[in-house]
């Protein structure tokens, strides 16, 4: 009897296992094996392929595709594919998208947008009220929208979000279906270039409630693409939205976005063609792909500055000279070469070269403050000793021990931090201890101020306003560097519409920040993108938000 029992048990287990396999393999949405793109491939008259599709790399799983609760940069970039914001940035300039045109009042407080005729995928027209619904849901206190600060210039937006004011007092109104009027509480010249206004459907939000934007079927799209399927932590598939007003300037019919966390796996996918293009940094692979004739290369700046921030309330780093010594002691060329294998450019200032002030390029017109400081000071060690004497810590750097906190714990993070440690110890003769925490612990330590030196990186927006304002909060930003002059410079700049004047104000603010060494910029991050030569029209400037406009494949 027992033998029959165990045989039956084994059989049953096998059947359930097999059934389980089938069900899980054909995941609920649809069978998404990547090779369904191999429909026959021909060429149209102007050399473009008839079957236009792309397989691209997505850095992480989007958290939630709901404008009122989205969290990270991945979600924001996805919105540009599936929704139609009021304005987009194309070839480095602000252009009309959802809004055909707009006019700003003289005092710069009222913006009136004239909407373009565009439709949601269910055929409903995109109206001004849709854009107002989005703003209303974003400042709704029980959505706890993480990016409230980006919209703080809109009248009563912050007050409503903290529950002090009623939603009706929001400075956004729709006189008629096609015009939207925004009122600001203070002039903000960088409003259109650094803030995104997406539309949202109140009825859809009502229907799906909390699960809005968590599945491909739980959302409504009106952008160039619609989200066809979403296998969490694996891949998203976008298909072209023919109802989109600018549909004919988009050639790509279908985009499959693969989420691949492991670097070796990403490079292997590019090498065997399952990815069409990818940012590559490992030197060996760079040589390998450069040697291939069916691949081309383009440099992409990430508009992100990697830096070391000092805690100005700390006993040692409250002294300016000590901070300057530590900032000047870093060999930025070595760090850029080792950490990013040469893709990054050493940074002697905060604002990356991509930033614009109106139509003026910031970096071209403002000299990097640190190079100036470096000329004045020839021996950082002497400067450090001076600072130590001012603090009454004696004059022997070897007795000084400081702690450098790093925000990652991977093996590579340890190797890079050891390089910083070596550079400081050799140049200044002091002892540097390293502390590793996972990013969550690191962030909370830095925000709470229990650190001496910490590695950090800040992304820039179109205008320097966003980066510079990190240190103009009353707490003095993460460096706790309270400088009234800096705060007034940054605030005044954000309100001067004249580009040249604004540029000079930003320049003076940056010089103050770098000279007093609240931070020590290290390098501007960049990446080297390799793409198969059959892919054309890939966009190179960082701030562009034009989705896959103008991209097409020929000769795949």
């Amino acid at each position, binding site marked *: 009897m027992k033998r029959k029992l165990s045989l039956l048990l084994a059989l049953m287990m096998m059947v359930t296992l097999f059934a389980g396999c089938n069900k899980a393999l054909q995941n609920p949405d649809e069978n998404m094996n990547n090779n369904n793109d191999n429909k026959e491939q021909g060429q149209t008259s102007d050399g473009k392929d008839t079957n236009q599709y792309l397989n691209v790399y997505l850095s992480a799983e989007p958290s939630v595709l709901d404008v009122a609760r989205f969290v990270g940069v991945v979600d924001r970039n996805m919105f540009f594919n599936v929704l139609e914001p009021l304005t987009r940035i194309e070839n480095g300039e602000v252009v009309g998208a959802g809004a055909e045109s707009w006019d700003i009042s003289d005092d710069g407080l009222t913006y009136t947008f004239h909407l373009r005729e565009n439709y949601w995928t269910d055929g409903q027209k995109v109206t001004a009220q849709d854009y107002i619904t989005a703003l209303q849901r974003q400042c709704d206190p029980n959505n706890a929208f993480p990016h409230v600060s980006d919209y703080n210039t809109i009248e009563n937006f912050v007050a409503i979000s903290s529950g002090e004011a009623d939603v009706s007092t929001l400075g956004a109104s729709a006189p008629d279906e096609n015009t939207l009027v925004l009122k600001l509480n203070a002039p903000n010249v960088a409003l259109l270039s650094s803030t995104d206004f997406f539309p949202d459907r109140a009825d859809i939000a009502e229907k799906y409630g909390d699960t809005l934007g968590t599945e491909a079927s739980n959302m409504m799209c009106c952008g160039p693409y619609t989200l066809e399927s979403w296998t969490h932590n694996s891949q998203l598939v976008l298909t072209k939205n023919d109802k989109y007003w600018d549909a004919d300037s988009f050639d790509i019919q279908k985009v499959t976005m693969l989420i691949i966390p492991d*670097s*070796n796996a990403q490079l292997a996918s590019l090498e065997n063609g399952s990815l069409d293009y990818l940012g590559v940094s*490992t030197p*060996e692979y760079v040589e390998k792909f450069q040697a291939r004739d069916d691949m081309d290369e383009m440099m992409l700046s990430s508009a992100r500055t990697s830096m070391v921030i000092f805690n100005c309330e700390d006993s040692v780093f409250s002294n300016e000279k000590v901070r300057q010594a530590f900032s000047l002691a870093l060999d930025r060329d*070595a760090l850029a*070469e*080792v950490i990013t294998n040469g893709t990054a450019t050493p940074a002697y200032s905060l604002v990356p070269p991509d930033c614009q002030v109106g139509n003026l390029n910031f970096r071209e017109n403002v000299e990097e403050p640190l190079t100036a400081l470096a000329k004045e000071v020839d021996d950082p060690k002497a400067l450090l000793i001076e600072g130590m004497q001012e603090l009454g810590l004696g004059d022997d750097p070897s007795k000084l021990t400081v702690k450098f906190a790093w925000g990652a*714990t*991977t*093996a*590579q993070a*340890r*190797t890079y*931090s*050891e*390089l910083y*440690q*070596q550079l400081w110890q050799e140049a200044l003769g002091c002892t540097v*201890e*390293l*502390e*590793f*925490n*996972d990013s969550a*612990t690191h962030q909370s330590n830095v925000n709470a101020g229990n650190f001496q030196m910490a590695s950090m990186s800040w992304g820039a927006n179109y205008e320097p306003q966003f980066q510079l304002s990190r240190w103009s909060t009353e707490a003095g930003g993460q460096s706790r560097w309270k400088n009234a002059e800096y705060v007034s410079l940054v605030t005044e700049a954000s309100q001067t519409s004249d580009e040249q004047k604004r540029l000079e104000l930003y320049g003076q603010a940056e010089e103050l920040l770098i000279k007093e060494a609240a931070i020590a910029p290290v390098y501007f991050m960049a990446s080297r993108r390799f793409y198969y030569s059959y892919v054309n029209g890939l966009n190179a400037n960082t701030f562009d938000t034009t989705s896959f406009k103008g991209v097409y494949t020929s000769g795949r």
Partner: protein
Amino acid sequence: MNENAVNSIQEQALDPKDFQIQGADTASAELFARKPVTYWRDAWRRFFENKLAVVALCLLIVITLCTIFVPIFSSHSISAHDLLNRKQWPSAQHWFGTDDLGRDLFVRVWAGGRVSIIIGVLGAAIVAVVGCIYGGIAAYFGGKVDMLMMRIVEILSSVPNLLVVIMMSVVLESSSIPTLLFAMTVTGWCPIARLVRSQMLQISRSEYVMAARLMGVSPLKIVVRHMIPNTFSVIIVAVTFRIPGLIFGEAFLSNVGLGVQPPNTSWGALSSAAQSSLLYYPYMMFFPALLIALTMLSFTLMGDGLRDALDPKLRR
């Protein structure tokens, strides 16, 4: 007396003197070809008989000596980096090649060995001792006590290890070797406790354990003297298996910020650092992994040798 018997004796020339009865000389009866041997000396000799186990022991001693002396005498230091010859293949100057920062891997591998061996060996020992005693007591008492102790083991082994480790790194602040060992073994002994308990359950019913209990021998003594030697093979296999687990565990911990702090390193940390450039610079991964394999091999062979030597049943 039939004929064939007589003449067969006749052949040898015998003289009558040979036929005086002298009686049994009990002295020579005591002569033994084999000296009486105590259990431990016999086990010790039997262990050294097993050639493989001896080779393994020597290998282990060589490795340990290298980890102690190579970093001291080597010309390269474990932290001096030179950015000129980064990622060099093993060469006359750098026997094990250099890593991302141009540091000599030969020195770093042996320096890292110190941490890994201490953690691998000490960790496995702690886990084994605690696991055996805990499992033994649970099996010895049985009934309610056993049920309770097993439930505790289940609770401890269900709490996610990563959480415990991050907790350790925060609470203990320091990240020296003892804290590392504590973090890894705080719940590491549970699987061995379960294994030993189920194995000892049968033994606790045997006659000699009952006899010992009748004689009033203390439970701990019974567990250590009687039950553990008899489950030796299971324990040895389980312990030698823990060693690579612990060595890689340390690498995982250093990924969470608790492990060994730079510039010091360990085999686990070296192999995980080498992971990203594995396909292009396999030598970075090869030597630490090789040494972990050799350490594990020698412990396994020594374990087998010990088991055969100490297992009373196999005594010839």
